[in-house]
C-alpha cells in the first residue's frame, strides 16, 4: 500500500511529461494496468468502487450502470461509461479528483473503505490519455444545484494538474423525463480488451453485487447484452467511522514516525489523542512503565518528537506489552488472591523462579546458608513480593535449618522454590481497551445470503458473520457463506468468492490466506468431495469469504491475495467449520426428507391404487387402508412448511405431526424462529410459550394412531427469503421423522449461552479494564479477571438459525 503511495507521490511531483508516462509505464502493474484485459477491469473497478464509496458516505442507495462499447475494435479501443446516483462532485473539485494524483478525501483515516489512495480514478484518466490521447468526459450534479456540470479532463503530467476543457452547464434529464438529483457520469476511451470468464468485468461486478446487496448494478457489455443485479435490501451498510491506530499494532519504526509527525504538544496528549484504546488511566501507566516520568512520577512534559531513541524504544515495548507492572497480591484465608492496590511496580516480565532450571538452583543453594537465600532468589527473578520472601526464609529455616546446606537440603529447597513457593506477584501489561469495532462494516449474514441467492440460483445457502476480533491492534471480522445445490457444476472445484473490505479479489486465489482457510478444512466429513482431504473441495457449491478489517495485509501491491495472519486464518477456519456443519445438517435433512417423501408417496398414491386395482380385478370391495398404512409408516412424522405469503408480506409456517404408529403418543413440539433478527410471531393460534429467545414450544394433545395435529403461525417483520426453513424439535418418547429430539441438557446449555450473550455483550473485558480502582489504598476485594487474550472472546451468536445447531454439535 505504501509503495503505491510512494509511486503516486513521485508521480505527483514535478516531472517531465516524457518521464511521467515512462514512470506510469514502468509501474503500471502496481496500478493494475499491466495487460489490456486487466486494464479494463481495473478501470471499471476504480470507478465502481468510488461510486459505492461515495454513495455509502452520502447514505444513498447506489444505482450504478456500467457500459462498455467497442470504439475501434480493430485497435482494441474501448469506451467505458460508468454512471452513479451518488452525491456527485462539486464543480471546483472535479478537476482535482480526476486530474490530480493523491487528491482523495481519506488517506489518513484508518477505517474500512474501498478506496484509500487517491490514485484510483486519476490513474484511469492517465491510462486513457496515454493509450488513446483522449480526455475523460465527466458530468456531475450535486443535489444543491439545479444543473449538472460537464467537462473534458486531461492531465498535465508536468505539473500534476488537470487540464479541463469544454466546460458547460447542462440540465440532466433522465430517460423517464425526470431530472437527476445528483450523480456522476464518467466516460473514457482506452486501449483495452474485453473478455469473459473467471477474471472479467462481469465476474467483478457479479462479486461486487454479492457483497453490496444494497446496490443495484446494471452492466451492458460490448455485444449489447445487459445484466442486471438488483438491489435486495434497502439497508445501507452501517456507517463506518474512522479510528486511530491501536498501540498493539504499532512497531518501533511506526511509533517513531508518529512521534515525529504529531501535532500533540506533549507525551500525554500524544498517547491520549493519537491512539485508540488508551484511556486516561493508561496514559499515566504507559509513561510510568516506560520510565518516561519526572521525579514526581508525572509523565514527561516533553514533545513526542523530542524523545530519544531509547525512550521511544521503551514506549514501543510498553505498547507491545513487553514492559508492564509487577503486581503483588496476598492470599485470603480461602487461598484466593487479593490484589494489593497501588503496590505494583513497573518491570519486565522476567520469568518466575518456577521456570528456573533445577540444576542451576541446586548449584547456587548447595553450600549456601539462610542469609544467602534472598540474594539467590532476587538475583534470579523480579517476580516476588517482599512479604513472600520473608515467609520463604522462615519456612526454609524451620525445615532445613540455617545452613550451610548439603546437596540433599539444597535439592529440597530448590524443589520448594520451583513448585510450592508462591511469589505473590504477577506481570501485567498496561491494560488497554480494545479498539472500537464500529469502524468495521460487515455485510451481515442475512444480506450475504440475499446477495448469494440473487447471483447464484441454488437451494441451500448458509452464512455466518463471526464476532469482530482484533489482531495486533487491528479490528477485523470474518464473514462466510456457502451456497449448495443443483445448477452448479458437481465435478469441479467449488467456486471461491474472496473479498477484502467488500472488494472482490479475483486473482492469485492459490496464494491467498482466505483460500488457505478453506483448504484447511476436511470437507469430506461435511459432504463435499475433496481428493486427499485437502485443497479446495469439489462439488456443486460456492464458498464466500469476506475479511473486513481496518488493515488488510496483502501479499503484494496488486492487492489480490491476503497475506497470512494466524489469528485471522483461524477465525476464517472456524467460520468454515461452522459452514460445513450447516451443510452436513442440510444434506442429512435432505436425505431424510427424501425418504419420508417416498413413504408419503407410497401411502398417498401407490397404496390406494393397489387397493383399488386389486379390488377391481377381483370384483370385491375396496379394502380400508388404515392398518396397512400404520404398518408401512410405523413412525410419527413431522412436516414443516415455511413459505412467503405475498399478500400479507409475512412468512407463514405450518408444522404438522401425524401419528402413524399403533400406539397413542403425546408430544411437545418446539420450533426455532428468527426472534433475534427482529421477527414478530403472529397468528399463533395454538398458543404455547417461549422456551427461550428464538425457540417456541407447544404442548400437543395426545395423538391416537392415525391422528394428526397442525400448528400454524406467521412471522412479521421479515423480507422474502429471510426465513425459508424452520427447524422442528420435539419432546416425548420414540422417534419423530422430520424433527430432532430436544434434549433438555442441551436446552439448559442454550439458555446459559443466551444469558451470556444477552447479559453483557463482550463489554465484560473492557469494563474490567476501564473500571479498575485507581483510588486509595483499599485492597480490592475481587481479583480482576486475568488479562484476556484479545480476540479470543466468546463468539457472538450468529443468528438463531445457526445457534441451535452449532451448539448441539460443539466445536470441531
Amino acid at each position, binding site marked *: 500500500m505504501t509503495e503505491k503511495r510512494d509511486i503516486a507521490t513521485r508521480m505527483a511531483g514535478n516531472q517531465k511529461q516524457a518521464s511521467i508516462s515512462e514512470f506510469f509505464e514502468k509501474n503500471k502493474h502496481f496500478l493494475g494496468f499491466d495487460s489490456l484485459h486487466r486494464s479494463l477491469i481495473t478501470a471499471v473497478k476504480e470507478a465502481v468502487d468510488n461510486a459505492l464509496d461515495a454513495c455509502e458516505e452520502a447514505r444513498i442507495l447506489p444505482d450504478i450502470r456500467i457500459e462498455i462499447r467497442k470504439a475501434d475494435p480493430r485497435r482494441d479501443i474501448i469506451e467505458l461509461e460508468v454512471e452513479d446516483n451518488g452525491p456527485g462532485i462539486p464543480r471546483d473539485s472535479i478537476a482535482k479528483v480526476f486530474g490530480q494524483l493523491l487528491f482523495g478525501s481519506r488517506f489518513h483515516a484508518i477505517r474500512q473503505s474501498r478506496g484509500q489512495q487517491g490514485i484510483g480514478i486519476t490513474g484511469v484518466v492517465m491510462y486513457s490519455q496515454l493509450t488513446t490521447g483522449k480526455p475523460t468526459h465527466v458530468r456531475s450534479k450535486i443535489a444543491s444545484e439545479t444543473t449538472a456540470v460537464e467537462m473534458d479532463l486531461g492531465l498535465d503530467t508536468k505539473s500534476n494538474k488537470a487540464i479541463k476543457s469544454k466546460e458547460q452547464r447542462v440540465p440532466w434529464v433522465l430517460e423517464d423525463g425526470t431530472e437527476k438529483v445528483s450523480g456522476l457520469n464518467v466516460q473514457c476511451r482506452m486501449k483495452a480488451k474485453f473478455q469473459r470468464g473467471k477474471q472479467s468485468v462481469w465476474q467483478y461486478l457479479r462479486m461486487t453485487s454479492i457483497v453490496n446487496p444494497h446496490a443495484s448494478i446494471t452492466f451492458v457489455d460490448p455485444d449489447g447484452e445487459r445484466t442486471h443485479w438488483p438491489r435486495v435490501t434497502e439497508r445501507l451498510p452501517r456507517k463506518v467511522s474512522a479510528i486511530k491506530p491501536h498501540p498493539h499494532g504499532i512497531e518501533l519504526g511506526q511509533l517513531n514516525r508518529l512521534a515525529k509527525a504529531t501535532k500533540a504538544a506533549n507525551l500525554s496528549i500524544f498517547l491520549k489523542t493519537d491512539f485508540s484504546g488508551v484511556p486516561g488511566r493508561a496514559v499515566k501507566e504507559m509513561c510510568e512503565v516506560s520510565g518516561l516520568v519526572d521525579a514526581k512520577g508525572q509523565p514527561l512534559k516533553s514533545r513526542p518528537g523530542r524523545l530519544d531513541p531509547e525512550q521511544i524504544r521503551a514506549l514501543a515495548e510498553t505498547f507491545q506489552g513487553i514492559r508492564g507492572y509487577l503486581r503483588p497480591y496476598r492470599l485470603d484465608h480461602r487461598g484466593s488472591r487479593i490484589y494489593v492496590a497501588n503496590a505494583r511496580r513497573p518491570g519486565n516480565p522476567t520469568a518466575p523462579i518456577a521456570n528456573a532450571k533445577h540444576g542451576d538452583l541446586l548449584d547456587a543453594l548447595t553450600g549456601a546458608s539462610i542469609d544467602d537465600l534472598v540474594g539467590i532468589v532476587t538475583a534470579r527473578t523480579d517476580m516476588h513480593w517482599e512479604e513472600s520472601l520473608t515467609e520463604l526464609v522462615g519456612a526454609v529455616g524451620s525445615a532445613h535449618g540455617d545452613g550451610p546446606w548439603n546437596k540433599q537440603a539444597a535439592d529440597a529447597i530448590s524443589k520448594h522454590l520451583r513448585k510450592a513457593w508462591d511469589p505473590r506477584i504477577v506481570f501485567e501489561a498496561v491494560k488497554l481497551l480494545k479498539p472500537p469495532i464500529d469502524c468495521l462494516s460487515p455485510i451481515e449474514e442475512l444480506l450475504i445470503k440475499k446477495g448469494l441467492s440473487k447471483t447464484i440460483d441454488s437451494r441451500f445457502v448458509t452464512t455466518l458473520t463471526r464476532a469482530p476480533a482484533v489482531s495486533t491492534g487491528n479490528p477485523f471480522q470474518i464473514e462466510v457463506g456457502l451456497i449448495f445445490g443443483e445448477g452448479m457444476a458437481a465435478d469441479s472445484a467449488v467456486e471461491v468468492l474472496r473479498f477484502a473490505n467488500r472488494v472482490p479479489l479475483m486473482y492469485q486465489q492459490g496464494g491467498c490466506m482466505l483460500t488457505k482457510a478453506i483448504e484447511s478444512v476436511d470437507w469430506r466429513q461435511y459432504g463435499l468431495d475433496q481428493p486427499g482431504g485437502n485443497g479446495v473441495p469439489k462439488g456443486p457449491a460456492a464458498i464466500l469469504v469476506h475479511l473486513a478489517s481496518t488493515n488488510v495485509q496483502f501479499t503484494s501491491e496488486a492487492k489480490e491475495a491476503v497475506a497470512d495472519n494466524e489469528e485471522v486464518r483461524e477465525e476464517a477456519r472456524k467460520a468454515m467449520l461452522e459452514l460445513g456443519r450447516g451443510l452436513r445438517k442440510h444434506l442429512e435433512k435432505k436425505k431424510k426428507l427424501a425418504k419420508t417423501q*417416498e*413413504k408419503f*408417496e*407410497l401411502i398417498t*398414491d*401407490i*397404496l390406494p*391404487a*393397489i*387397493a383399488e*386395482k*386389486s*379390488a*377391481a*380385478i*377381483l370384483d*370385491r370391495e375396496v*379394502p380400508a*387402508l*388404515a*392398518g*396397512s398404512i*400404520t*404398518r*408401512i409408516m410405523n413412525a410419527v412424522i413431522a412436516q414443516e412448511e415455511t413459505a412467503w405469503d405475498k399478500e400479507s408480506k409475512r412468512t407463514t409456517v405450518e408444522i404438522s405431526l401425524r401419528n402413524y404408529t399403533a400406539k397413542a403418543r403425546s408430544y411437545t413440539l418446539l420450533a426455532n424462529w428468527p426472534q433475534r433478527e427482529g421477527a414478530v410471531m403472529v397468528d399463533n393460534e395454538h398458543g404455547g410459550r417461549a422456551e427461550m429467545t428464538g425457540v417456541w414450544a407447544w404442548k400437543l394433545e395426545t395423538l391416537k394412531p392415525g391422528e394428526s395435529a397442525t400448528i400454524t403461525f406467521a412471522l412479521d417483520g421479515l423480507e422474502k427469503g429471510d426465513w425459508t426453513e424452520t427447524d422442528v424439535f420435539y419432546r416425548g418418547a420414540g422417534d419423530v421423522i422430520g424433527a430432532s429430539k430436544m434434549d433438555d441438557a442441551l436446552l439448559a446449555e442454550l439458555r446459559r449461552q443466551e444469558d451470556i450473550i444477552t447479559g453483557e455483550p463482550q463489554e465484560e473485558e473492557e469494563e474490567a479494564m476501564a473500571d479498575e480502582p485507581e483510588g486509595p489504598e483499599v485492597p480490592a476485594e475481587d481479583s480482576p479477571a486475568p488479562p484476556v487474550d484479545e480476540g479470543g472472546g466468546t463468539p457472538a451468536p450468529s443468528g438463531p438459525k445457526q445457534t441451535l445447531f452449532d451448539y448441539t454439535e460443539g466445536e470441531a
Partner: protein
Amino acid sequence: MTDRTHSPEETKAALHDVVVEMYDRIVKGEPPTMTLPVRTKNNITFNKRLGVYKYGKSTSVRDATSLRSAKQLLRALHVVEFIEEMIDAGKSSTLREMYYISEGWGHGKFGSQNESNNLAEDLEVVTKCLREDFKLRPEEDGARIIGNITLQERNRRGEWMRINARDDVGDSGYGVPYNVESEKLELIEHDVDFIMAIETGGMFDRLIENGFDEDHRCALVHLKGQPARSTRRIMKRMSEEWDLPVVVFADCDPWSYRIHASIAYGAIKTAHISEYLATPTATYLGITADDIVAYDLPSDDLSKKDIEALNAELTDPRFQDPWWQEQINMMLELGKKAEQQSLAKYGLDFVTDTYLPEKLAELGLA
C-alpha cells in the same frame, strides 16, 4: 407339446391368485405382498428327472414397505388387468407395446422396457403360465437356420407352407418365428447328421460361404448372441424329434460359456420353463480355453468384468462339472479370451478345413 400352455381360464385364475395375495394382506391390515421364487444362480437346482436346471425352493417376498416394491406391485396389477383384457378380446401385444401402453397407467407406469420384461417374467414364474398364455410376444430376434432340413410353418393366412432351409431360402437362411410350437411350426424331415449353433454372424456366414453345411452334413443355427427363447426351443425340438446331436460353437469368453449353459442346462432367468427350452445333450465344441493355447490364437486380455463373470461362474451350479471348472480356471490363469474369428489367423479356410473337423472328430461327429 401343447400341454405347455394353459387355457384362458387357467391363466386368469393363476393371475388372480397373485391379486388375492395382495388384497388379503390389505384386508388384514398388513402391507400387500407378492411372493416369488428367488431368480438368481443361488436358487437353481438340477432336476434329475428333466435333466435341466430349475428354480429351487427359495422365495422372496416383495412387500409394499418401500416405494420401489410398492410400485412393482401396482405395476403387476396393471399387467394382470391388461392381460385379462387381451385374453377377453382375443388380442395379443408385444412386450414393447405393453411398455408403451403402461404410459397410461399413472403410478403403475414402467420406468424402462427392461422393467416390463422382468415383470412379465415374474408373473410367468409365479403363475407357472407362459407369456404365450399372457398373449405377450417377445421383441427378441429369432435365429436363422441354414441346412438341409425341411419344416412347415403356418403363414398369416393360416396355410401350411413347406420350407427347405437350404433350397428355399436366401443367404440369410430360414428365419425362426417367435412361436415355434406345433400349432405354428412342424418339423418335416432332414438329411443332416448334427446341428451346429454358432454365436456370431460373421462365423455363420463364413461357414456357409465355405459350404460347411453340405460338406459336413449339418444344419447351422445362428444364435445372435444370447439365444432367444424360440431359438432354444426349436433347437430342443430338432434335437428331440429328430434325435440329432447339437454342438455349440462360440467365442472363448465368459459370456459364451453362459450362452452354452442356457442352451444345454437352462437359463437362470427362464429356469421356470427350462424343460421346454434346454437341450441337455448339447455339447460345447469350442472355442475352449485350451484351444487358445493349442492353436496359438490371437487373444485379448480379460477385462475386470470378464474376470468377475468367470468367478461368478465358478460358483454357478450349472458349471460345477469338472470339465467346466477346468476351462474356467484355465481362462482365468491365461488371463486371455479369444473370438471365433481369431481362427482366421491361419487363413479363411482354416476353420472349415482344419479346426472344426479336428474338434468334431474329438466328439466322434466328423
